[in-house]
Structure formats: structure tokens, C-alpha cells
């Protein structure tokens, strides 16, 4: 438990936590409804998918890779789940949930396998699969939408199930964060992600394979994206080609704000959770200002950029030298 306490008081996450609380307070002062219990629960519920995806993305980023295909993966699995539900209304929802996760895992594993076997940079591979998966949504659906009246009530209701006052989605997000934190801090495989991302050459000389470790991270990221595909479609009760378009960038932004380095090897789930909450608060507060959606996009982009710059500056301050040492 000592290490857990140490994690809690670590300066980086604490600083970020203050920032998140301050943002929350500012929003609450302007819009009292924000601070109500139901308002907070709504924000958590709205942020759940972002959190789930961010946990998966964190595993990938830690290994010095990036997964740009998560939103396309989500759209494809979501569409498949919706089509299966439409064609076979009798298939139980739990089967659809598992199926979505499995399909997502396969799509993620495909990314990982290509990167592992061909040694191609992940940004190139996932940029390619992003387009492929997105294109496949159109192929499997023929470009048609699946709307709420074509889905069974069970299919849509499950995400709204309440347990002890929290939605199923919120519970899933909390579970992902807790499991992710334990995995990264307390399992050998979790620590290997840091080794591979921190110094791939050193990891390999200690007998840890970069390719295999990245393959694992991509598979998990894909599985999470698949699960989120079902959740997204069920929650918004619609499946179409452009679902979650561009959402991968928000996921990556949440990770970076949370202190995960895109250069790999640095970052913790606690920070990522805070990064997601920060984006969630911004996203839920901006519409209340009465700005047009386009202005909202611009303002949230500005805030995200600012947060990332702050983070980067703090990193540089803690290392001091202007002569950056190259990793082997």
C-alpha cells in the first residue's frame, strides 16, 4: 500500500487534480446545475467511453507506439453489433457485448501483428487501418443507417442500467481505470510496457521483445475499442459510417494531458483518468455557454493545446538541460 500512497501524493497527478477541480469549480460557479449530483454523474457517464479508450491507448503509447485506428475500430464493431441485432433480434445482448470485444480485439491484433512482423512504424500502420476499418463500415452497412427502431429495446437499455446509482458505462470506465492502474503498476507484463517504451534497445537486451509487447498493447486497445463500439451505438441508438469520427484525437489528447509521453515509457492511469475528466468537464460546460458548436470546437481545441503545452513545459523544467540525450 506504500506505493499506492506514494502514487497519490506524486506532484504531477496532484497538480493535474488541482487543475481539474479548479475547472470544475469555475464551471459550477457559472452553472450551478453542473455541481449537482446528477450533473456530476452525467459528466462521468458522458466521459466513460473516453476513459475506456484512453486506458487502452495508454498501454499503446507507453510502448512508444500510437493507435490511430481506435475510433474507426469502434465504428466498425458498433455497426456490426447493430446489424447483428437488427438481423437476429433473439441473440442475447451479452453475446453481442462479447462479440464486439472479440472483433475489436482481432482488429487491434491485426495492427499489432503488422507492426511486429514488418517492423513498420505504428503511426503509418494505424493510419492505414483507420481508413480501412472506416471504409469497411460503409461496406458492411451499404452506407445505410441503423436507427433506434431497428434495434431491440434490450440492446439500447443495457447501457442505461443503474447499479448503486451509477450507470453501467460509468462502472465499466471505473473498472477499466482500476484494472489498468493495477495492471500497469503491479504486473510484470505491465512493467514491460514501460521498459519497451522507455528504451527498446535496453529492453531487448534484457530479453523483452518489443514486437510481442506492442502486439499485446494493440490487442487490448482494440478489444476496448470494440467494447466501446457496442456501447456507443447502444447509447446514441444509431449506427452509421461516421460514428465517432476523429474521436481518436480526443483520446490521445486525454492521455497526453494526463501525462503520458508520446515518446513512450512515461505515464500513469491516475493521470489519464484526470485528463479524461478534464476533457469531459470542458465538453459538458462549453455548450452551456451558448456558443455555436464550431466555436465550441475551437475553444476546446485551444484549451487542450494549452494544457498540453503546460505539461510539456513542466517536463522540460524537471530535466533542466537544453542538450537532450538521445536514447540508444
Amino acid at each position: 500500500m506504500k506505493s499506492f500512497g506514494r502514487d497519490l501524493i506524486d506532484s504531477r497527478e496532484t497538480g493535474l487534480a488541482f487543475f481539474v477541480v479548479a475547472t470544475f469549480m469555475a464551471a459550477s460557479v457559472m452553472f450551478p446545475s453542473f455541481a449537482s449530483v446528477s450533473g456530476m454523474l452525467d459528466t462521468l457517464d458522458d466521459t466513460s467511453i473516453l476513459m475506456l479508450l484512453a486506458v487502452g491507448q495508454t498501454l499503446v503509447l507507453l510502448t512508444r507506439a500510437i493507435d490511430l485506428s481506435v475510433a474507426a475500430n469502434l465504428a466498425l464493431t458498433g455497426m456490426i453489433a447493430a446489424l447483428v441485432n437488427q438481423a437476429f433480434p433473439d441473440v442475447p445482448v451479452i453475446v453481442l457485448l462479447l462479440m464486439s470485444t472479440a472483433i475489436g480485439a482481432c482488429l487491434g491484433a491485426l495492427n499489432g501483428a503488422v507492426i511486429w512482423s514488418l517492423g513498420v512504424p505504428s503511426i503509418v500502420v494505424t493510419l492505414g487501418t483507420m481508413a480501412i476499418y472506416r471504409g469497411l463500415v460503409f461496406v458492411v452497412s451499404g452506407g445505410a443507417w441503423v436507427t433506434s427502431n431497428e434495434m431491440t429495446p434490450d440492446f439500447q437499455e443495457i447501457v442505461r442500467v443503474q447499479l448503486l446509482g451509477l450507470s453501467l458505462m460509468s462502472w465499466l470506465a471505473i473498472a477499466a481505470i482500476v484494472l489498468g492502474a493495477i495492471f500497469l503498476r503491479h504486473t510484470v507484463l505491465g512493467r514491460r510496457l514501460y521498459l519497451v517504451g522507455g528504451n527498446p534497445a535496453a529492453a531487448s537486451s534484457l530479453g523483452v521483445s518489443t514486437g510481442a509487447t506492442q502486439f499485446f498493447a494493440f490487442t487490448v486497445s482494440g478489444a476496448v475499442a470494440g467494447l466501446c463500439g457496442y456501447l456507443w451505438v447502444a447509447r446514441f441508438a444509431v449506427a452509421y459510417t461516421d460514428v465517432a469520427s476523429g474521436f481518436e484525437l480526443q483520446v490521445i489528447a486525454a492521455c497526453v494531458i494526463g501525462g503520458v509521453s508520446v515518446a513512450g515509457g512515461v505515464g500513469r492511469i491516475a493521470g489519464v483518468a484526470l485528463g479524461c475528466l478534464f476533457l469531459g468537464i470542458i465538453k459538458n460546460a462549453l455548450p452551456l455557454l451558448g456558443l455555436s458548436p464550431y466555436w465550441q470546437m475551437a475553444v476546446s481545441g485551444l484549451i487542450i493545446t494549452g494544457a498540453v503545452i503546460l505539461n510539456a513545459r513542466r517536463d522540460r523544467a524537471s530535466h533542466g538541460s537544453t542538450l537532450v540525450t538521445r536514447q540508444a
Partner: protein
Amino acid sequence: MATPLLRISGVTKSFGGVPALTQGELTLRAGEVTALVGENGAGKSTLVKILAGVHRPDAGTVELDGRPLRVVSPRDAVRAGISVIHQELIAFDDLSVAENLFAHEMPTQHGLVDWRSMRLRCTELLAQLDLHIDPDSRFGDISVAQRHLVQIARAVGGQARIVIMDEPTAALSHHEAQRLLATVRRLRAQGRAVLYISHKLEEVLAIADRYVVFRDGAAVADGAIAEATRESLTRAMVGRAVNQEFPRTPATIGAEVLLVEGLARRGEFSGVGFSVRAGEILGVYGLVGAGRSEIMRTLFGAKSASEGRVVVCGRPLRASGPYDALRAGVAFVPEDRQNEGALLTRSIADNIALPSLARLARLGLCSPEREKQLAEKWVERLQIKCTDSTQHVENLSGGNQQKVVIARALETAPRLLILDEPTKGIDVGSKAAVYRLIDELAQRGLAIVMVSSELPEILGMSDRILVMRRGRLSGSFERRDASAEAVLHAALDA
């Protein structure tokens, strides 16, 4: 006699057509320390990398316990019980010291990482090397010498039957090196086989049971250390008897090139003032951690000074980065050749031309042809041993890599050349070549600052000697007044 633990015979390896190993022969026995000596480029590191699974041999056999051993990846080496301390740091700057120590085999309990026992064992293992630091410190925040000690602790802490140490004391102070030698003796007592590679023959004579000498990629001599002397080993290494001599020709001392006044950097050094004139070699001596490298980095603009004034050729230098220092005529050859000096994965020509690309460019476009001509000029002038100027620097020996880095510094036409440990990890023959080069540069009127941990080198090459202790100047000697005792005394804590 019992079957040797490890036997290597007839191993060969070439890089891009240049043979690095032509006849690798080596036998290691349990409970014995075998020293491997040879000049840089003799094939020692290549052999180590083959045993570590980094390189694959072109031919030859490796036998463990009399059975053929296939080592085609680092993982195979780890499994075979071979643990290697590489010359360079192989570590994770952003992780804790404890985690770096156990990265290869984390202690677990119920399938989860056991952080508590990891910290405890870390403290214990480091204490054996007389290193007392918080196991939770970030690895990148501890000193270079401490990092090397952690790396050593990692290799000897496990259950490896064979421990290979490639220049383990290169970055260590005298005291730390003594602790390491004690550790090697303990490994021997535990019945492990140790392969000890070092340029420091005193260490080899003190610690080894047997020796093997490599020259030009082949094993040329071996035997019991009791029958060897410093002279016999040196003779075998170079194929002839050499007595280390320093080719120092008195040069005409010219105008003042560098003036430093009251230079300070918080927590590292303070009150540093000195000057260097054209044609003069200023040697800077001190123990590891005395602040020598930090001052040089500050002069070069790689670190910012908190106080003080630097004047180069009469003009105040306000370097906010190395770019400013280069423009003012200051060139720097850093200590850490592998990470900061050379671009290992680029060609010799790329390395040498790098800071001079703009000058070599035609109509704003880079000119590979002129870059190549330039590189070939330096290859010839400094006698860099390579296939041609397109060869990657990582495939050169340490001494030749250093020549490339020096050539690059010289190509910027500096007025002041700062050399930080210019002969670190370089063999005797190449050292002499580097010394001749330094002397020639001084004669041509270059002002030179040379940081070194090797006392003979400092005494042999410098016109004047500055000594540092704990971030302050603790002595200054003219060449004729300097003695080894006086300089060492000034460097050690009183």
C-alpha cells in the same frame, strides 16, 4: 581438467566487409576470472556482443558445458545464464533505480510485482557496491557513475553463471572501482565465471586469474596472469613493445582565446575563473563528479550559467545554446561519444559534415558530393580506419569513432577546442594517434581545453593544469611544477 563452462572457437564476424573478428578463441571456467585485453578494434566488444546475442557470428562454435549453444537473441543469452555489463548504459531513465535493477526479473508475489522486496533487495545489492541511494530515485536523476554501478549491480545480482564485464570501471572513480573489484572476487568465490575486459592493465593484473590477448580480431596470446606483466601484455596487444609517451612539442603561445571569470552554476560549481591562450593546452583534472564536465558543457552553451562571464577572443560570449558557442569559435567533443558525440546510425560523411552543411551547400541545397570529399579529406588526415566515408559510424571501433567526432569539431574551424575525456575507452595505439593530433592542433595555434581522469595524460599533454574538487578550483600548476602527487593531492579531499 573439468569441462570448461564456456568455450568459443573459430568465431568470425565481419561488418560490411570489414572483418572485426577473424579468430575468436576463448575459454571460461567456473570460479575463474579471465581478462580479455586488446587495443580498440581488436574485436573484444564484437565478441561480447556475440555472447550477449546482439550480433550473430558468421562462423565458429560456442559451447556451454561442452554442448553447442545457440545465442541468436539477447533472450537466449539471458536463458543460458550469461549476464553482460555493456560498455554503454543500457537502462531506463524514467523508471526508478530499483526497477532498473530488476528489469530483467521482477520479484513477484501472487502474480503481482513485489515492490517492497524489490526495494529491499535493491538497497542490499547497491550497498555491496557501497552505493547508498533511494531505490525510488528516478534513474535519469542520479550521476553517471552511479548509473554504471546500478548497471553492474543488475548484472551481478542475478543467478547468471557467466558474468561479462566490458570496461566496467571506465566511468567509475578509484574508490568505486575498488568496490567493483571486491565484487568480482566475490563472484569468483561463488563459483561463477567472469570475463573481465579492461584497458586498465593494473586492474587486470590485480583481479584476473588468466588472460587472453586479442589483436586485429584474433586471439594472439593467453596464459596465467601470474606469468604476465604490464609490459608483456602491452607487447602482445600491439605486437611490439611500446612505452607510453606523450608527443608534446612546445608551441608558441599566442593571444588569449578564452577568459572565464566567476563562472557558476547552482549546485554544480562556483567561482571558476581561468584563461587559455592560442597554442596552449590546458588540462583539467579532478575526480568524477568534481564538476569538470559541467563547466565544459556550460562553456559550450549546453547548460546555462547562473553567474559569471565568458570571453572568447575578446568578445563576451552569451551562449543560450551550443549554436552560439559554435559561432563564436568554440568546438566541443563530449565525453559520452556513443550518445552525444557521434550519430552512430549515420555515415562518417554525414557525421563530419553535419555542423558545416550550410557552408558546404550550393545555392542553398546540400551537396553530398562536397560532403563526401570533405569526409575523405579527414579520413586520410586522421587515418580513420574504415571501408569508405559512407560506412556507418556504429561499425567503427571506439578510437575511430572518436576521430570522426574530433574531425567534425575541427571542420567548424574553431579557435577553442574543448575535449572531454578524449581518450576514454580507446586503446593504446589509438591513444597515441589522438595525442599526436592534439599536439599538432596546439602547434597550429588552436587553444585547447582537455578534461581527463587519467593523470599521466594530463601531466604529459598539458601546458598548464587546473584541478577541481567538489565544484571548485583546488589547484593550478605550470607544466614544469606539476607532479603526479601534487595534482592528485589537490584533487582529493583534504
